[in-house]
């Protein structure tokens, strides 16, 4: 048991060292990533200004909340996005690197999860500065800190969004066992998740029944749900149900990734790779 932990700790450490080498890219890339937010702020400002009438809200969002929404989805995506995960799994399958996991006494999904975790930790270590800077600059868009319970729920939803994003992408990558060319599928996933996660705009602003539909799909937990929790758009029983549903999806995709890996590997060794 101890050896196991030690092994994964080593994987984590090596991955961290590897990622740190690229820290300039990280810092630059993270700052650049906020540029679209700047234009979003101005765009929504203009949209709200252009509205007629006294109380200017869109689907329950006022101007400040709308900006806060976009800023917070960035946090959500920082946890849930897994750049290149599915495509690297599919590539490993295609070029046979996957055999490595058959030979070494290490479980592939745990290994990839560890290196992703390392990747994310280093990312946060560097990204926390630009994030803090941007949020401090934009502090007026927020109504102040929410209560402790909300913050706890927010953190829980973020952590689960990391796991959900990971297992969803891993599941997608496993499709590579059955189809050689998955890149176009992945592109579709990218577009769909950009839209359905609420990263592009809050699903609430769509006409009935779209918001209801979007909130059934697990993709909303990648960005919309954590954001809505922080902004206290979901509270009370709805919040509890939301967290439970998110946990359910994490478990669901955990098993789906495992199952696909299991059967994929069987198929792979049956065909000899």
């Amino acid at each position, binding site marked *: 048991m101890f050896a196991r932990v030690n092994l994964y700790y080593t994987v984590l450490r090596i991955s961290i*060292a590897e990622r*740190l*080498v690229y*820290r*300039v890219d990280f810092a630059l890339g993270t700052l650049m990533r906020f540029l679209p937010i700047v234009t979003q702020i101005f765009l929504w400002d203009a949209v709200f200004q252009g509205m007629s009438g006294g109380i200017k809200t869109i689907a329950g969002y006022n101007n400040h909340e709308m900006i806060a929404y976009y800023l917070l989805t960035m946090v959500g995506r920082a946890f849930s996005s897994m750049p290149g995960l599915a495509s690297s799994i599919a590539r490993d399958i295609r070029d046979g690197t996957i055999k490595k996991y058959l030979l070494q006494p290490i479980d592939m999904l745990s290994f990839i999860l560890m290196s992703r975790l390392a990747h994310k930790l280093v990312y946060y270590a560097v990204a926390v500065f630009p994030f803090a800077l941007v949020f401090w600059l934009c502090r007026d868009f927020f109504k102040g800190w929410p209560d402790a319970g909300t913050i706890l729920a927010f953190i829980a939803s973020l952590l689960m969004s990391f796991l959900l994003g990971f297992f969803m992408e891993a599941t997608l990558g496993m499709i590579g066992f059955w189809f050689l060319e998955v890149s176009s599928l992945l592109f579709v996933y990218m577009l769909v998740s950009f839209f359905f996660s609420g990263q592009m705009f809050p699903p609430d602003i769509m006409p009935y029944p779209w918001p209801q539909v979007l909130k059934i799909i697990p993709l909303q937990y990648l960005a919309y749900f954590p954001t809505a929790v922080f902004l206290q758009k979901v509270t009370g029983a709805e919040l509890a149900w939301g967290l439970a549903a998110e946990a359910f999806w994490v478990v669901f995709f955990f098993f789906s990734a495992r199952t696909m890996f299991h059967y994929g590997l069987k198929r792979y060794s049956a065909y000899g790779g």
Partner: protein
Amino acid sequence: MSLIEITKLAKSYSVFQKKEGLGASVRGLFSRSYKTIEAVRGIDLTVEAGEFVAFLGPNGAGKTTTLKLLSGVLTPTTGTATVMGHVPWKRENAYRRRFALVMGQKNQLWWDLPAAESFRLHQHIYNIDPQEFQKTRDGLAEMLDVARLLSQPVRELSLGERMKMELIAALLHGPEVLFLDEPTIGLDVVAQHNIQTFLKQYQQDRKVTILLTSHYMKDVMALCRRVVIIAQGRIIYDGSLEGILDRFGGLKVISLLVADGQMPDDLSRYGEVLKIEPPRAKLRVERSKVTEVLAAILSRYAIDDVSVEDPPLEEIIAKVFSDNREEVVGGSS
């Protein structure tokens, strides 16, 4: 005035030195250390029209850099050069129409398209008259025996076939000077031979001037009379192939056929014994002592046959390269 004139040509560049380890790579963000690499350290050379010159030298000796300087890809640090009266790195169109560069390790043809399409592109780039173009292309394709492959995507060709296509592409506009950088690298013996034969024929027919770098002595022996040896960015030899022996081949090999199978047991007195396989023996002897040694052996033993040979050229050149390297390493310490 010679066709190619090179005076004190030198090229150096500084490279960012990457260091190992985490701390070093962080420090590297603030201060970078550079290392100056002197690729070519002052070369003087003249080449007359119609010559076929080989550049020999170990990896990193500066052969390719010299060709790149002469074709205007690189600008020298100091020194001058003219090719057909043009300064190459001015990159004048008038010059660029008159030469071609072929690199064995790079390809300029469109990977996913038939070679014929790339040729057509060259026709327009060099503004070649359509009839002239067709004639040249078909002639070259026939000489190189690739006419049936013209409409096949380049990625489906073998390395040798691809190299032939590269050659055709380079020759379409009828260059007067041709720079060939390792044109036979990675090719099998047959393909190498084909390309050598082609180059020889082409040079004889067209009287073009060719500068060639190669690792393969076979290329050089088959094609070039004049050899320039470059090591550590300097020319250390310029002359005929045979002249290399006089300059660097300080040793000769004496082969003996001993009569009666009575192998003498003191051969090592005369020189380094390479091989004894009764009734034959091989001795390596300094060039100046050959007559003396032969006289001594012939007077003392019964010998049926004797021959004196130069050691293989490849061996000599390999030795020249390694000697030169030691010298420089020794010099810098």
